[in-house]
């Protein structure tokens, strides 16, 4: 396979929006195309991540209309659905197609209007990500799955639940702090540990501020062969490796604190890049819930099992810490327009490696990783980038 790079990125404001999925994506796409010193006609294919357009807008065939909306109706386009990892699986596939030589320049990313559904309908559609034939009547929600993970984590590692809850709250406080520096984040306000404790209970032990929001938004990436990339930009951000893995329905997963799909996906990415967790300077990972960030930092190899909670406490995951996690604010503060989240993670890593992140810049970051998790821990995609 040949070398491939990200040459331009774009992202809309995350949060409530009146725009359609297509309008949101076009805005992000045009920014990415302009940043790449290209015109829409140079785009050879579109790989678009989106989960619920049918429920949000009564609209499918989204990728075709997205291409038409930026003036390139006659190119191959595909919508990718991998639950909350949809944006990442679209980008990983785009990377593979360019690496194979089939295309030189591809537009990839994701768009979502999760807020358009309203909380009740959104909760119902999100539950479709579980093994719904069997799990719908159980009443298990996504916060419920991660709540079970938190209880099992505390029990497995002998951590008093009160102590783990404080460490989880520290994840929310950190990500909200980082989010204040991201102009396009859904939430740009500091919160305290007490704010987390005061928020309503969602699924014990997860309170509202342990949970990421539903958001609207889109993010887009232009991916090019290294040869083209060098001609288009002074700052190509190269793909070093990528991985993806699925898993069976939740009850069939042996230990949900280990997230086997992520371990396999991350290993593929590390092996392909010839790198280890110690080589990663910065990571944007799937903090859909505070416990999810702690577990992900262990699954990805940044901390030993049972140590991720202590890493947060010691400040090792802050900007300026040993391994800065979610400098963008993560899903918690940047927001979670599900199909766009993976693309927003790549946007952040590209901006960070190019040194363009202002107050949230991780100094000297040269290698960055993304991690996106979908559904009942059964869809994971990881990508590693370098300059």
């Amino acid at each position, binding site marked *: 396979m040949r070398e491939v790079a990200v040459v331009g990125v774009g992202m809309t404001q995350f949060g409530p929006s009146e725009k359609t999925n297509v309008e949101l994506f076009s805005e992000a796409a045009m920014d990415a195309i302009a940043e790449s010193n290209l015109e829409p006609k140079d785009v050879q294919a579109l790989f678009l991540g989106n989960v619920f357009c049918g429920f949000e807008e009564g609209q499918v065939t989204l990728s075709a209309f997205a291409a038409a909306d930026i003036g390139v109706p006659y190119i191959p386009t595909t919508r990718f659905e991998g639950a909350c990892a949809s944006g990442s699986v679209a980008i990983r596939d785009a990377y593979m197609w360019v690496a194979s030589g089939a295309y030189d320049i591809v537009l990839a990313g994701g768009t979502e209007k999760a807020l358009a559904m309203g909380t009740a309908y959104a909760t119902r559609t999100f539950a479709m990500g579980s093994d719904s034939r069997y*799990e719908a009547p159980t009443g298990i929600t996504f916060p419920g799955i991660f709540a079970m993970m938190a209880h099992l984590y505390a029990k497995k590692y002998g951590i008093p*639940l009160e102590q783990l809850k404080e460490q989880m709250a520290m994840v929310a406080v950190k990500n909200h702090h980082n989010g204040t520096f991201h102009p396009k984040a859904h939430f740009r306000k500091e919160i305290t540990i007490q704010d987390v404790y005061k928020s309503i209970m969602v699924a*014990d032990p997860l309170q509202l501020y342990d949970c990421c929001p539903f958001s609207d938004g889109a993010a887009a990436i232009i991916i090019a062969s290294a040869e083209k990339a060098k001609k288009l930009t002074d700052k190509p951000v190269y793909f070093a490796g990528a991985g993806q893995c699925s898993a069976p329905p939740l009850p069939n997963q042996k230990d949900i604190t280990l997230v086997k799909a992520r371990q396999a996906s991350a290993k593929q990415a590390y092996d392909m890049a010839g790198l280890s967790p110690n080589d990663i300077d910065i990571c944007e990972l799937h903090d859909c819930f505070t416990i999810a960030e702690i577990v992900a930092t262990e699954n990805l190899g940044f901390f030993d099992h049972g140590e991720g909670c202590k890493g947060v406490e010691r400040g090792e995951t802050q900007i300026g810490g040993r391994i800065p996690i979610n400098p963008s604010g993560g899903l918690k503060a940047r927001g979670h327009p599900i199909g766009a989240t993976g693309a927003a993670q790549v946007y952040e890593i590209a901006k960070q490696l190019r040194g363009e992140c202002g107050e949230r810049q991780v100094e000297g970051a040269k290698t960055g990783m993304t991690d996106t998790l979908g559904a009942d821990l059964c869809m994971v995609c990881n990508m590693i980038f370098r300059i």
Partner: protein
Amino acid sequence: MAEEREVNSASFYQFLTEKKLMASRCKKCQALYLPPHPICTKCHGSDMEWVEMKGNGKLAAFTAIAVGTTCTIEEGHDRNNPYVAGIVELDEGPKISGRISGLDARKPETIKVGTPLTAEFPEQEEGKGCYVAFKAQ
């Protein structure tokens, strides 16, 4: 005859309406599946038979849910009336997720992994038949 029903989701729910929790077992390698699988994921055989589970097991994972799904809200659950849900490991081996009754959802600190449970078969909303849930013994 139970054995003659096709191994699929529809049959599984038909059995639940008859208050039977049925798994599928591969006749070739004896692997047990709950929910039932028509194809053995271990030996890839497709000669399956139905096996009734005794319905006894223990709590393997749990949470008390305050903000629930549409069906639980319709049942009257809300932030003041949370419910317990979790994963149950049956004595026969398979794990299945389910609603758990007989535990205090308002006092999750009293709930313990390993609590013995028995299957029950509550009715779903009108015309949708029964589902499997579990009750603390």
